[in-house]
């Protein structure tokens, strides 16, 4: 990415956002922090920016032709039951079930769903005191194991910030990090 060449493309926005604007698809749905979005529009692209220690779970149902994404910030709702009520997608344990419920509401079935995971990064922290990303991932693994959900692909950990796109029509997931883009 070279900011100098892209500065002129429009209003104030980051490198990632700028690129997005240049190649904006017909229906782009942004998932904010502590947010869930689902769609059954085959032309839609669901995107979330700057996952640090936060985790995004992408679910795609090729049979129903639907997709969904959560961007959760913290592992456990016990941290703040009040916030869990007003913002359930802030936490893995209240948010992930809600993502699946929203997919069921679209007519999706659990057996058809393909699940991918990205995020859970960490700063350089030898003692791991700070490792919210690892805690976010551990809780997710426990929940998926208990509910017999298999992770089809994942890109987690490391000192990386990630931007993730889910193409609802194809189920393609693209992760952008450290200036490079790769399919997940």
């Amino acid at each position, binding site marked *: *990415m070279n*900011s*100098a060449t892209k*500065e002129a493309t429009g209003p*104030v*926005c*980051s*490198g990632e*956002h700028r690129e997005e604007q240049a190649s904006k698809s017909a229906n782009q749905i942004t998932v904010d*922090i*502590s947010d869930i979005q689902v769609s059954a529009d085959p032309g839609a692209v669901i995107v979330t*920016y*700057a*996952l*640090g*220690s*936060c985790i995004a779970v992408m679910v795609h149902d090729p049979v129903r032709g639907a997709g969904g994404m959560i961007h959760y*910030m*913290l*592992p*456990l709702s016990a*941290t*703040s039951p009040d*916030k869990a009520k007003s*913002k359930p997608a*802030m936490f893995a344990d209240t948010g992930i079930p809600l993502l699946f419920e929203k997919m069921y509401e679209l007519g999706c079935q659990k057996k058809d769903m393909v699940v991918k995971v990205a995020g859970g*990064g*960490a*700063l*350089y*922290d*030898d*003692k791991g*005191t*700070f*490792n*919210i*990303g690892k*805690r976010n991932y551990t809780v997710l693994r426990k929940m998926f194991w208990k509910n017999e959900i298999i992770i089809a692909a994942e890109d987690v950990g*490391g*000192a*990386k*910030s990630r931007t993730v796109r889910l193409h609802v029509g194809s189920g393609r997931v693209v992760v952008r*990090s*450290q*200036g490079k883009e790769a399919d997940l």
Partner: protein
Amino acid sequence: MIGKEEILKRIQSLHTLPASTARLSALVNDPKAGASDFEAVIRPDPALTANLLRMANSAYFGLSREVTSVRQAITLLGIKRVYEVASSVTFSRMLPATVPGYEIDATHFWLHCVGVAVLAERLAEELGRKAPDLIFTAGLLHDMGKLAIGSFLVDASEEVFGRVLDDSIDLAAAEKIVLGMDHADVGSDLAEHWNLPGPVSWAARWHHNPGEAPENVDRNLVDLVHVADGLAHSLGLGADRGELARTILPSAIERLGVNVRRLEFTASETIGQIYGMTELFSKCAGGVG
């Protein structure tokens, strides 16, 4: 490698500090200054007055009734708080559309700044400590060196970020190797050049290495800003090209006595406020966005 002198020249050529901010900074450094002195600076500036009242009435500052005058704001919030609010408004107006070199736009840079200000202040409270004087402003302005160093970084960015990736060193360390100084050095020089209060210069200088701060520096303040900075990056608040390549020092965490659950609680309680306040700044006339 560029010399300190060249960087300082760059600092001189940066936007001039707005006259009202300079005068308020002088007042906050002066123990004899009183409410009427602050009022005399703020009131003649209609944009500053309007934005000060807008910010002062936001939920973050927790006033039980609406303030409609500068005098009222000073009475209810106190001189230091009014300085913090007024200076944050004027600084938000000084941001360029993008911060060169770091590949981050003003809105996301400011989101990070507000994030560190709010997290540092709230963390002090969560740890049962009195928030150090001016910690909100110190947190808000901790990265201002990036504004001055950014244009040098454009030419050196491949080398700096190449070192971050290849050698797994943090961003500030890579800056120091390639440029001879890092954004922390530059930020504190800038704070001193502008005669900003001590805590602002301390946080700018020591936020990546609080353990090395000399004795005259409020160690508690620089530890809180260091941890808040790490937490803000971790939460994705204002990811620049350095991404998560930041070091969190176990010694700072130990001195504060903070653990991951406390950090998570602080994050859950403040994330909404951080986004809300960033949006409010963007509504201030001539502000970000």
